[in-house]
């Protein structure tokens, strides 16, 4: 039987070390809503989301109460809207009508974000894909809860450089369209390479076309718990350090598995995957950077950061994988700058640069995430940064992503405020050497040689 020490350990993780289930994300397929008439399409989308997700928030709250574990977010992901709207939408403005419908449905069921305002264009774009991408700035400016993503490359297809070029401009336009809120729209826009179909984490969540009608995916978190656990092995060897991280990741993930199973049973919707991620928040004691510092770095960004992160990421997966029946999504350590107090401090101190962050993304999930850059950065430079990150994903057969916020009207030395879980970020300098001749080339970068595995 469970003993008092084990009970106290669990409750201490929750009370003092910020253990939580970060998100229950309900994936809803909208493929059966497809219609040639835009009004009818919007009506069906609203109906399907509000009916399927009617009990999402109340079920999440019930589970929170009964098990005593906070579930921070209840969210929805939907089929990429570029597919759903393809036959009804004739222009970017038509897609904005769907965005507004999604926003209303999200408000109705009480979720804080709905992901899937997305296009999958890793090889080429249809007219519908392009219209959706062009509608993103307006869609994110006139809604509150929509999250958008564009998959512009994969190991199998290479990188669609036409989409990369377009996305650089779209990031810039989204920043302009939301400049009164420190370009907040860009915090809800992710550009991916190798995007997974079952990612429960925003802003990049969407329900892939390979998924069923509805599915429950759960993202766990707990950087504070890992930090606290490894404080006890300070100065010990790597074997002991790695064992401690694995055991802790196992415990955290088991809680996620329990919550996912309960949510699935109570809502009568199949369980998909657990995403084993260390997802930080801006609060003290909930930081991935603090784990790296506890491992032995004076500040994140110091030499050794990439190695420490690679090790951390691997141990989290090894510990978590046995705790869950199905693992998927992004699974790893997140390093979003504005959402992690330790990262923010390191950028402010000049220890952490965008180049070091890029190196870190080679060994962890997901990419250049929530990084505020000067508002004057050109669209071509943003496309260049996106292309670099996509190349890392393509060649290393991993998911990478870019969520940059060119904060209009602000420059290096100033800070952008996004609020809530999105946090705040000091503006980081960007290499401004021109790459426009590279970005303006048409077509795509071919798939790498090691993608031919058949």
């Amino acid at each position: 039987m469970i003993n008092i020490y084990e009970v106290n350990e669990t409750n201490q993780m929750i009370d003092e070390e910020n253990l939580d289930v970060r998100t229950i994300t309900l994936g809803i397929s909208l493929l059966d809503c497809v219609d040639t008439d835009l009004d009818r399409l919007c009506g069906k989308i609203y109906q399907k989301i509000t009916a399927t997700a009617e009990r999402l928030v109340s079920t999440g709250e019930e589970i929170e109460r009964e098990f005593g574990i906070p579930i921070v977010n209840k969210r929805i992901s939907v089929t990429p809207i570029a597919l759903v709207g393809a036959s009804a939408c004739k222009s970017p403005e038509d897609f904005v009508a769907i965005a507004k419908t999604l926003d209303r449905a999200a408000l109705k069921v009480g979720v804080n974000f709905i992901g899937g305002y997305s296009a999958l264009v890793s090889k080429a774009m249809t007219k519908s894909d392009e219209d959706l991408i062009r509608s993103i700035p307006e869609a994110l400016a006139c809604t509150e809860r929509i999250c958008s993503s564009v998959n512009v490359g994969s190991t199998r297809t290479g990188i669609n450089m036409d989409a990369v070029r377009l996305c650089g401009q779209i990031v810039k336009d989204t920043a302009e369209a939301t400049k009164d809120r420190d370009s907040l729209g860009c915090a809800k826009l992710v550009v991916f390479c190798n995007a997974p179909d079952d990612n429960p984490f925003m802003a990049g969540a969407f329900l892939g076309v390979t998924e069923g009608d509805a599915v429950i995916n759960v993202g766990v978190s707990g950087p504070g718990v890992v930090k606290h656990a490894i404080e006890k092995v300070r100065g010990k060897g790597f074997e002991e350090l790695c064992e401690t991280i694995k055991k802790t990741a196992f415990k955290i993930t088991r809680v996620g598995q329990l919550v996912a199973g309960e949510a699935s049973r109570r809502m009568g919707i199949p369980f998909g995957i657990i995403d084993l991620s260390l997802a930080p928040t801006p609060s003290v004691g909930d930081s991935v950077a603090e784990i790296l510092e506890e491992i032995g770095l004076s500040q994140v960004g110091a030499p050794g950061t990439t190695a420490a992160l690679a090790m951390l990421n691997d141990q989290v997966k090894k510990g978590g994988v046995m705790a869950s029946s199905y693992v998927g999504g992004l699974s790893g350590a997140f390093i979003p700058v504005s959402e992690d107090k330790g990262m923010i401090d390191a950028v402010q101190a000049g220890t952490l640069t965008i180049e070091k962050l890029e190196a870190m993304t080679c060994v962890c999930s997901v990419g250049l995430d929530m990084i505020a850059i000067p508002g004057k950065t050109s669209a071509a430079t943003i496309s260049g940064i996106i292309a670099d990150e996509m190349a890392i994903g393509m060649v290393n057969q991993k998911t990478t992503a870019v969520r940059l916020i060119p904060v209009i009207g602000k420059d290096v030395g100033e800070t952008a405020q996004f609020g809530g879980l999105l946090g705040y970020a000091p503006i980081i300098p960007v290499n401004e050497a021109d790459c426009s001749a590279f970005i303006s080339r048409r077509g795509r970068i071919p798939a790498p040689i090691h993608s031919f595995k058949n």
Partner: protein
Amino acid sequence: MRKCIITVLGKDQVGIIARVCDYLAGANINVLDISQTIVDGYFNMMMVVDVSAADRDFSVYAGDLSRLGEDIGLNIRCQRSEIFEKMHRL
């Protein structure tokens, strides 16, 4: 059987167990096990209870216990036992 774990934390005083058990008896909740320690005057108790025959909903008895704790200056919480079993047992 449907098990819950009740934890009681706070400054030691007369009658803590009596008051908690009195409430549980009134709600038809059976106590299966109690373990308790006192460190530096601080009371730390864990009860394993069976709520399958409880005459009220989880949210009612969990809320009542939490309020009882507030009345006597203690932190009392009731959680389903699976969270601990999942985390600490294979």
